[in-house]
């Protein structure tokens, strides 16, 4: 355990952490210097502005580095047990609430699942009364093509606007003060099954958004809209010819298998490349390198025999120039995906010392069960270690960069493969982890599920599912369906782990008070000690938690913690959609694993905000 932590701000304005401790590792290597590069954005800003920034929460991942780490220190391991509700707010909706609230200038903004209301709450007044509500009026037909409940993962703030996406494929910008619509851009076509569920990222004066629809054979893309008026700056597809993918002379992938012309066509059977590679997860940004990083979703259909080849550029990660969209490098987590292992999870941007050398890296806990460390300048894989039990693959070959699949668990036509771990929903799905520079630990909410899968012929019918699989999910080894795991990034091993009876489907938050927050599907919102996972406090909310916790300093100068409760998503669809567990394949097998959830929670979205007495 660390005895002492030293925080200092370096000249560039970013935080450096030097650990002075008594552990063998620290004595062995004085190399442990971690810089959160995302805060480089503050380089030119005064300290007071930086403090102001830390009082707020302007994007779901807190910073461009996606750490979900707050330097606020009022709530600590010794007083967290005294947290009490400050106020609550019902959204009045019964679908999955996956979003992170935002806090900007004394106002809290809450985006709901379909019909995608935006609520503004006045934090300067007792009880945080509603200032205004914005209704974008999305097309109700979008609900029928949302693969995994009608969720929305949050908004972003920039240029006095709150920007977010609607289920029917629009991006809307709303004046943060008046609640009036500033602009909207219609990007997705729900008639093809194209929805948008992700939270946008605002960087470099642009709004970055991507589409969902991996289960409908939708061709994935990421687009950059100009923040000022919503006009299109650039759009890059994640399959198809190089000109569509924005692959040009600046594309320098580390590994050989990504080099060559039009690999996004050649790595598919003829004409089959138009399906998959969607962008529905998280985007990180390195202002110094001027690059964005985002993962791509599964290829379509799930049945792998209908799409021989590596299926580039699906189930991987792209680095792109934020201004032009031109690809810099790409790496594929799961070549020729066999299990719906979308690569869209969060990438945390860190500067570390690796084997004696300073490296700019990104850390990525992937759906396939490995925590990857990639050089974010070149796309080289430095490490990939499992954080859960995996039998779908054997390891990641660091020389070729390729995942080594396990032939015994390979899915294919005409067979049912039993006990594949992890499942289609992954060792860890979209629910984002948090990283503390004080502990060097990544706090991972995740599942422990396995599955049986049968591949069947998928017919492409526009606007209907393009899957081709029967799936039954079930609890993994040990019987606990989830866990909350503390992962030492540099040592690449588990520091502590809390087994949870249900999959953990909420995001994580960690603070400089060394308190970690997360929620459970049966509605507990928990505060645990960042060093050892000891439960400090918990509060039972009315529904299940699949939201993302945030913390902020209120207008009264005190620290608050906020979370949306409201069961749903793929994991909770048995409750929100009243699914029938007598069919073990319902919701692509998820219902079989979550058969008892309707007994544990009821649907209903409610915001909870906590403070010290």
């Amino acid at each position, binding site marked *: 355990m660390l005895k002492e932590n030293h925080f200092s701000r370096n000249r560039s304005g970013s935080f450096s952490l030097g650990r002075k401790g008594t552990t063998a590792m620290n004595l062995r290597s004085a190399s442990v210097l971690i810089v959160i590069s995302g805060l480089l954005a503050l380089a030119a800003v005064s300290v007071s502005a930086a403090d102001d920034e830390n009082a707020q929460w302007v994007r779901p991942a807190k910073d461009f580095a996606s750490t979900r780490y707050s330097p606020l220190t009022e709530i600590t391991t010794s007083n967290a047990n005294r947290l009490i509700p400050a106020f609550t707010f019902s959204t009045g909706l019964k679908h999955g609430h996956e979003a992170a609230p935002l806090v900007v200038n004394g106002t809290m903004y809450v985006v709901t699942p379909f019909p995608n209301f935006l609520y503004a709450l006045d934090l300067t007044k007792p009880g945080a009364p509603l200032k205004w509500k914005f209704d974008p009026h999305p097309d109700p037909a979008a609900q*029928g093509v949302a693969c995994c409940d009608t969720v929305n993962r949050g908004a972003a703030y920039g240029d006095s606007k709150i920007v977010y996406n609607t289920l029917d494929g629009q991006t809307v910008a709303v004046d943060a003060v008046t609640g009036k619509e500033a602009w909207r851009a219609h990007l997705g076509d729900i008639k093809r099954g194209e929805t948008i569920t992700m939270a946008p990222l605002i960087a470099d004066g642009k709004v970055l958004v991507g589409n969902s629809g991996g289960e409908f054979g939708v061709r994935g893309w990421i687009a950059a809209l100009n923040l000022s008026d919503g006009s299109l700056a650039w759009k890059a597809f994640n399959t198809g010819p190089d000109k569509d993918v924005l692959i040009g002379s600046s594309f320098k992938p580390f590994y050989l298998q990504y080099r060559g012309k039009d690999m996004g066509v050649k790595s598919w059977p003829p004409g089959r490349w138009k399906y998959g590679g969607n962008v529905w997860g998280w985007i990180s940004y390195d202002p110094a390198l001027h690059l964005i990083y985002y993962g791509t979703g599964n290829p379509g259909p799930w049945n792998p025999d209908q799409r021989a080849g590596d299926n580039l550029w699906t189930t991987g990660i792209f680095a792109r120039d934020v201004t032009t969209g031109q690809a810099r490098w790409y790496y594929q987590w799961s070549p020729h995906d066999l299990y719906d292992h979308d690569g869209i999870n969060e990438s945390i941007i860190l500067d570390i010392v690796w084997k004696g050398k300073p490296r700019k890296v990104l850390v990525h806990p992937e759906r396939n069960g490995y925590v990857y460390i990639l050089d974010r300048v070149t796309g080289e894989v430095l490490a990939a270690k499992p954080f859960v039990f995996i039998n779908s693959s054997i390891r990641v070959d660091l020389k070729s960069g390729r995942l080594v699949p396990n032939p015994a668990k390979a899915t294919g036509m005409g067979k049912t493969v039993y006990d594949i771990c992890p499942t289609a929903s992954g060792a860890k799905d979209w629910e984002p982890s948090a990283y503390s520079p004080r502990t060097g630990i990544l706090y991972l909410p995740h599942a422990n599920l396995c599955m049986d899968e049968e591949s069947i012929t998928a017919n492409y019918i526009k606007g*209907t599912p393009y899957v081709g699989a029967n799936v039954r999910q079930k609890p993994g080894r040990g019987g606990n369906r989830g866990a909350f795991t503390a992962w030492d990034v540099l040592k690449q091993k588990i520091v502590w782990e809390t087994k949870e009876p249900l999959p953990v489907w909420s995001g994580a938050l960690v603070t400089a008070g060394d308190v970690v927050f997360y929620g459970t599907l049966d509605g507990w919102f928990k505060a645990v000690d960042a060093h050892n996972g000891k439960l400090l406090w918990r509060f039972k909310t009315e529904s299940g938690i699949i939201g993302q916790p945030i913390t902020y300093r209120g207008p009264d100068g005190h620290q608050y913690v906020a979370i949306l409760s409201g069961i749903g998503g793929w994991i909770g669809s048995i409750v929100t959609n009243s699914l029938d567990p007598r069919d073990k394949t319902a919701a692509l097998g998820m219902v079989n694993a979550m058969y008892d959830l309707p007994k544990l929670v009821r649907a209903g979205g409610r915001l909870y905000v906590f403070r010290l007495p």
Partner: protein
Amino acid sequence: MSFAFRKAMPVFAVVALLLAGCEREKRDFHTASAGNPPGDSYQRNAYAVAQGKRLFGWMNCSGCHSHGGGGMGPALMDDRWIYGGKIQQIYRTIRDGRRNGMPAWKNRMTDEEIWQVAAFVRSMGRYVSKDVAPSRDDAMQSGKAESRRERTNVITWGPPP
């Protein structure tokens, strides 16, 4: 009542039973009439229900509704019906679509096929007779066959799967 008539009673009963059985096995080679009221003949016909089951997979219905338990779309094996559970109502839902996400199939399936799918949907919650409901599955087992299902929907949260 004459002795001769009483003697003929069992014969009438047998004939009536045979006629009912004939309907189960009936093949319509002209599709002008869907019965009276329209559709009822489909849900009494094992062939129509079996064809509906094949189409249910082939036309990607199972992509949203799974094998009756639902997913993106609602469950079809339970007793809750958003747009009505009579075969005529199910037929209209499939043919014309519904505004909250159900696509219209009138340009993708024939009228006959839509009635067959509607008849199969009725069998998922066993709203057709036991001998008409499918009794086997060609795919990985998702649960009890349609013919073995109970109409009641009491969920007890029994032991883990």
